[in-house]
């Protein structure tokens, strides 16, 4: 269905996206792994880039929110995003239980319920390159969609695993710890905090915001390219892993995002979002987390194999969305959203 929309228009969008510096640097990293080139971005440089990107994207979102206010679609869109973070894992779980045990199915489901901040950022860049406007409040769900996905994932584990879990003697699942980890994960905290700071300082410290602007704007795209170079390396390594995980997961990691994108597109239409916001909403639905959720799953569901939930999100869904997904979903937006939106 979605594939049928791959018309000439989409092909043009895909080409424009795939030949942009950000995607080309992603490929450069991935090809380095396949050619076995000695390219390495040592720790903690990738962490530097991701801290910067989250800080900047949060701050920019806060600035935009201060300018645009909370009226109109803001509250409904954020509410629906958070609901989607809880609903998508339920759908995924039903599908994944066909092949995986409760633990792995729940962990993968939580991963797909949540979002990928970098895919979101890449979609913003895509919109800018296409001269399509979007709103700053769309950043808010980046901070809000991790926790519901994690909680639903853990509820599924609790309900699904009848026998006593080995860790339930204290080292195991501890709801306080889980909630803490899901809401006070460093990255979630940073993006939420930067959003609030961007908002507050836009209102009370315009001079400070002005001095911040070159940092969060001029520099942004270059760091994104640098980070995607590293993500290319990581994704390719994970992709090798994924081959061992079998065809089912490979299909899941590509078809599930497309399915979620379709739901997202229909919801965007129902919410009355414009082109730009609609694409970003679709990305929130279709992308999968590789930050807070894997960390929480690693701690609370050690029975699940990280190879499955990390490799599917990073090794396939991430590259798919960055290359073909974003322009494809844009084509979908053009189909679904009335042009005067």
């Amino acid at each position, binding site marked *: 269905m979605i594939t049928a929309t791959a018309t000439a228009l989409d092909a043009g969008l895909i080409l424009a996206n795939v030949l942009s510096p950000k995607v080309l640097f992603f490929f450069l990293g991935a090809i380095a792994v396949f050619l076995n080139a000695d390219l390495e971005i*040592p*720790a*903690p440089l*990738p*962490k530097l*880039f*991701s801290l910067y990107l989250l800080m900047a994207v949060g701050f920019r979102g806060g600035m935009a929110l201060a300018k645009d206010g909370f009226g109109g679609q803001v509250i409904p869109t954020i509410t629906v995003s958070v609901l989607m973070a809880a609903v998508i894992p339920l759908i995924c779980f039903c599908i994944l239980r066909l092949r995986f045990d409760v633990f792995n199915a729940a962990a993968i489901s939580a991963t797909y319920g949540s979002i990928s901040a970098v895919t979101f950022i890449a979609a913003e860049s895509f919109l800018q390159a296409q001269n399509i406007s979007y709103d700053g409040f769309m950043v808010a769900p980046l901070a809000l969609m991790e926790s519901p996905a994690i909680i639903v994932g853990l509820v599924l584990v609790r309900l699904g695993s009848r026998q006593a879990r*080995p*860790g339930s*003697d*204290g*080292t*195991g699942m501890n709801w306080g710890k889980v909630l803490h980890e899901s809401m006070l*994960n*460093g*990255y979630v905290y940073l993006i939420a905090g930067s959003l609030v700071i961007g908002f507050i300082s836009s209102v009370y410290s315009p001079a400070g915001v002005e001095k911040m602007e070159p940092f969060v704007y001029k520099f942004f795209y270059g760091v994104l390219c640098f*980070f995607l170079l*590293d993500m290319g*390396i*990581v994704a390719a*390594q994970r992709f090798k892993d994924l081959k061992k995980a079998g065809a089912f997961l490979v299909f899941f990691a590509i078809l599930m995002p497309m399915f979620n994108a379709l739901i997202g597109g229909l919801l965007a239409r129902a919410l009355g979002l414009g082109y730009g916001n609609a694409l970003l909403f679709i990305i929130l639905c279709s992308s999968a987390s*590789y*930050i*807070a959720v*894997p*960390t929480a799953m*690693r*701690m609370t569901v*050690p029975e699940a194999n*990280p190879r499955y939930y*990390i490799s599917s999100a990073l090794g396939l869904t991430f590259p798919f969305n960055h290359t073909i997904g974003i322009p494809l979903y844009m084509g979908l937006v053009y189909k679904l959203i009335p042009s005067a939106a």
Partner: protein
Amino acid sequence: MKRLDLIVSERELDSVIEALDKAGAPGYSVIRPVTGRGPDTYVTEGMDFSGLGANAHVIVFCEIEVLDKLRVTINPILNYYGGVAYVAEASPL
């Protein structure tokens, strides 16, 4: 004196250090990031950006009594989350 070498995920480091403090270890040293492979896991620096982190290497020089207490608190962590703990002889310079 004994020397204890622990290799655990950075995510479990806080609990391990808490256990060391409770067991009365006179001190400890932590090196990170550490990468590696175990029977179950394969840890690279690649996931550093994600907050998932790599491993940490904890070295503890202590009396044998401390080890007895640690066995109770640390072995369950290692069994549940993975990681290794080995003991050797050591004497002060």
